[in-house]
């Protein structure tokens, strides 16, 4: 090899080189390149220093003892971020890159067919039709794979909304579903979380009314169920 023109002399180290240097698996040539650059370029030197400070902080946090509550919370968050639905394997099923699935993990949007919520209690009070005290108004939304959301208007004053969710699959501990409502005009939005049991079923209630504190859905016309989000995909049956 012609040693008079070594190919990597004075080349600026790239991010890959810096990562290898920091992580401790750089070869001698890479290490040399990064060191020479760092010793002659204060900006790179300060970048390495900043990395060192952050890594030390991360290592310290990692080795610190955790309370049981903290450990549970951490595990739940990690699970919510990393879990994903199983890969469909049928012919013609599009696949999603792992990184993309990881990014969207924990915010899996279920394939529900949404639509207007027509329960009478959601209409403005003056326009609302009288509700029989024993009548149960209900409305159901289904997903193609068999999950179901039912909305019930319970009698009472003010009336209450009950959401019943059945994902049709087992759910992990802590899994929940969020029902997203919109007024259809893009102005008002509301969300109702529904905790799931091990069978992937859950129930939640909220008050309906003119929009005072503690009410989930201010009574108004035009509410639509626009999305069902599985915030922890244990229901996916991983």
């Amino acid at each position, binding site marked *: 090899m012609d*040693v*008079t023109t*070594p190919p*990597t*002399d*004075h080349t600026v180290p790239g*991010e*890959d080189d*810096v*990562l*290898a240097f*920091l*992580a*401790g*698996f750089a*070869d001698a040539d*890479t*290490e*040399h390149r990064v*060191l*020479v650059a*760092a*010793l*002659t*370029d*204060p*900006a790179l*030197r*300060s*970048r*390495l*220093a*900043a*990395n*060192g*400070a*952050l*890594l*030390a*902080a*991360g*290592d*310290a*946090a*990692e*080795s*610190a003892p955790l309370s049981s509550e903290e450990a549970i919370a*951490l*595990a739940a*968050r*990690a699970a919510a*971020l*990393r879990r994903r639905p199983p*890969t469909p*394997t049928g012919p013609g099923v599009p*696949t999603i890159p*792992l*990184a993309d699935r*990881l*990014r969207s993990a924990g915010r899996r949007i279920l394939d529900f067919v949404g639509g207007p919520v027509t329960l009478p209690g959601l209409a403005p009070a003056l326009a609302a039709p009288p509700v029989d005290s024993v009548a149960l108004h209900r409305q159901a939304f289904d997903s193609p794979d068999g999950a179901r959301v039912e909305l019930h208007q319970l009698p009472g004053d003010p009336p209450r909304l009950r959401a019943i969710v059945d994902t049709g699959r087992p759910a992990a501990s802590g899994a929940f579903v969020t029902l997203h409502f919109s007024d259809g005009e893009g102005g008002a939005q509301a969300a109702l979380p529904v905790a799931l049991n091990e069978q992937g079923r859950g129930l939640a209630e909220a008050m309906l009314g003119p929009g005072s504190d503690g009410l989930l859905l201010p009574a108004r016309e035009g509410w639509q169920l626009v999305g069902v989000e599985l915030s922890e995909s244990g229901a996916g049956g991983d």
Partner: protein
Amino acid sequence: MPPSADDVTPQRGPAGTPGRPAGDTQDVVRLRAALRAHAAADGPAAERAARLELEAVGDPLLDRLFPRLLRHCHGMVTSEGAFRPRNALFDADDLAIEAWERTLRYLKEPSGDRVETDQHLWNLLRCAASNRLVDRLRRHSDELAHQAPQDADVSEEERLESAGAAAQPGPERDALLWGADHRGWRLVELLFRHEERFHVRFRLVTDRHPRQFRALVLYELGALLHREVNTPAATPAGRRQECSLMRRYAALLGIPPADWARVEQAAVAEEEDPGDGALIPGLRDAVNALCDTSVRTRTGLTTLRYELKRILKSPPARALEWK
């Protein structure tokens, strides 16, 4: 005990991958192969098969490493110290996901061959996270500087960054490193690791004993360190960082660690620069003691410097193998 924040020595992390010895290579090798196979897959069937293999390999790793990474990232973004006010703006979850993605991209590229063990993989994950956070912090700093250039509440790290951005690398500093290019690196390595071979190879170019050139290299590297740690803008963290980098560089050049420790000690000792071309007394004495030389003046060093440069340009030096 966690490593020092200023130490740029390769950081191995607190332990090996949970449940596995630190040197295990099985998982990372399989993951790398699966990533590359997936990238190269041609057609839906091949892509699907590669995807399944990637999940079979990647998911257990993800399950094992992700909680740990998340905790690490949480520690970084909530760390005490100069970065905290800005760190708090960033989300540990996002950081962990970005670090995971960056690591997968790294593994897929040819540079991924460097990642040989599961411990390397873990180190890469945490360094990808810290590097990403540094990027964000700097971008945020730039935005803040653009919005409020007169902000007086500047942290130590920000001052370090500002000082770094203001200073420009100069050719003189580069030249003082001696081993900055490959041939210089090999020459200095020969000087420190194989004195006899240096003597034999260059006997027709110079009749000086190699220890005199060793004294030159040690003094100039020490003087460079002395100058950097004594600049008015240098912070304690910056000084420790400079020492750490120079220590690693000296080791790479083949300078025995004990020798460099003596040079470093003399270089960082509180001592005014004598000026007027005089040598720094403490450093000069330390180098002379180490190399059994009697360099007393700048002129003597200049002569040695001229001769070492001549050696560097000589045919025997051009024939130095750098691999």
